[in-house]
């Protein structure tokens, strides 16, 4: 079963007179339960691709399918519903709501979904323990390091047990030990729950975890490597 399918997806940005092809005729199919790494140098189109898949940004042309829904034709409300119910996000630049504590940030999506508070607490405590932040659950983002914030974001992305996790450079701010731990956690979730992971990175150690490595350059897919499982 195919979880994600991009057909001939193009996205062009205009910067003054320049045209930047952030996605240039991208064709990509990702199976359910896959563990895919998208790697590219900075500016290669990773974030643009993940945003297109996550229903955050509309491609100029082409089709984006999640399961059997063509999402580039959904309206804003339907897209919001899709993101809320089915996708876990780790964004590259900005992830946490400053006025909420670590635990409240983790619970945010559950709360918007209407999960009862007892269940929210149980799940958020478990997941914070798993990312090693059980002692910091009462802290606000400003009181945590970049790495700790990143782990809170990851915790929020996976706590709802979504069918798809889109993580944009999730290890960018982490030391190697923590990022190893995180990748192990992703791999475990992928194996136990069949969660589909699409992770963008230019970190070689992260790439090493992926069973499939999609390399991009200037908005084009230049290599698509199936690796041995880890």
């Amino acid at each position, binding site marked *: 079963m195919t979880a994600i399918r991009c057909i001939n997806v193009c996205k062009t940005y205009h910067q003054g007179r320049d045209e930047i092809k952030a996605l240039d005729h991208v064709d990509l199919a990702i199976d359910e339960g896959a563990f895919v790494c998208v790697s590219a140098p900075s500016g290669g189109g990773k*974030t643009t691709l993940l*945003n297109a898949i996550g229903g*955050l*940004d509309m491609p100029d042309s082409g089709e984006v399918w999640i399961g059997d829904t063509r999402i580039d034709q959904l309206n*804003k*409300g339907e897209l*919001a*519903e*899709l*993101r*809320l*119910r089915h996708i876990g*996000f780790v*964004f*590259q*630049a*900005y*992830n*946490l*709501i*400053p*006025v*909420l504590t670590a635990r*409240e940030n983790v619970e*945010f*999506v559950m*709360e*918007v*979904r*209407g999960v009862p508070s007892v269940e929210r607490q149980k799940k958020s405590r478990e997941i914070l323990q798993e990312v090693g932040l059980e002692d910091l659950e009462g802290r606000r983002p400003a009181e945590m390091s970049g790495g700790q914030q990143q782990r809170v974001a990851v915790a929020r992305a996976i706590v709802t047990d979504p069918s798809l996790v889109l993580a944009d450079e999730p290890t960018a701010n982490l030391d190697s030990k923590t990022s190893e731990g995180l990748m192990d956690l992703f791999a475990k979730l992928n194996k136990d729950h069949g969660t589909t992971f699409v992770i963008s990175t230019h970190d070689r150690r992260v790439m090493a975890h992926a069973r499939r490595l999609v390399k991009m350059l200037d908005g084009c897919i230049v290599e698509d490597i199936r690796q041995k499982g880890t």
Partner: protein
Amino acid sequence: MNTAGIVMRLAWRNLWRNYRRTIIMLMAISIGAWAMIFMIAMLRGMVGDMIRDGINALPGVVQVHHPDYRDDPSVENLITMPSGEIESVFKEAQIQYFSPRVRVPAIVTSERASRGVTLVGVDPAKESLIQAVGSNIGEGRNLESVDDSGVVIGHRLANKLETSVGKRIVLMSQDRNNEVVDRGYRVIGLFTAKLPAQEEMFVFSGRTVVQKMLGIGDAVSEVAVSGPDYKLVEPLVQEVRQIFNGSEEVLSWQELDEYLSAMMGIIDGFVFVWIVVIFLALSFGLVNTLVMAIFERVREIGLMLALGMRPASILSQIIVESVFLLLIGLAIGNVLAYVTMLMLPAGIDISDLADGMELMGASDVLHPTINVKDIIIVNTFVLFLGVLASLSPAWKASRYEPVEAITKV
């Protein structure tokens, strides 16, 4: 989707995020609310005094006359029901404060001068119950009974006539046959009134003495009726109308004194304009605060939208934040206004100003009056329009494009 909890929590925390800005805004709202309530109380107090004094000029929030009396206040137009019967029917109807009077134009003459006045024959016991003008005796004594043959005149009139307590004066009027009747009276007391005109206008004597002088038997020209609150006059008018059953003219003070009731209307308009002006100043501050707050939060609003929160929840977050701000500000403002009222003496002496205001009928002591209805109006108005003013920034926030907010580095 039940997002009320998280929306409230976010609104509350965001409110205290830039607490200095919030406190300044709270001060603005509470001072605004305070000013609205306080100014309204002052205006209400001023008008209330004006009306009370006006009614008290010859008191009675309701007055009964012969239908032609107001056109021609002479002895020809008397109430057909004699005063003895009036007393018994009013007692039967359990109306406590009423006073049958004879009231005719007259000329008063002293050894030195003469002037046109209004001669009022009263029952002093009844007048003191409704606190007529003549009951504030500055010198000498008040009338003692319905057949007291002395007169009480105002200080100013005494000066004009160059007379004083103990001296005699002559009052002249007409009887039913247009014959001149006169009688000598001894001045027994001088009254003071808030309005100088009243001190020059009225001359009081015992009712039966005046009736005898005019030869009108037991007839009276007016019945003044008073109630506990001058604003609740309609039921009283109905009751008195029933007693007289259409044979006499029964009018409330509003109908008797169109000037005073017009003042009431003007004050209501004034209060409204005052509220609007203060609110306009407030709303600029409020909208500015919200616009700034939203501008600072572009990214997190984008983040919430990206995670799947509905624009409606973003909108309500901003509105709720504004409601919190307004509610707290209003609460402080109301308490401030209340405390100010408590701290003020029962009346504010404005006699320096009062000379100029006297023409309008204002007295020289102001009694601020808080009116529950005004407070409710002020609070609802500020809250309602405050929310209305917040709608536009809140709407703007809910329309953010999540991807732009998220990817901005």
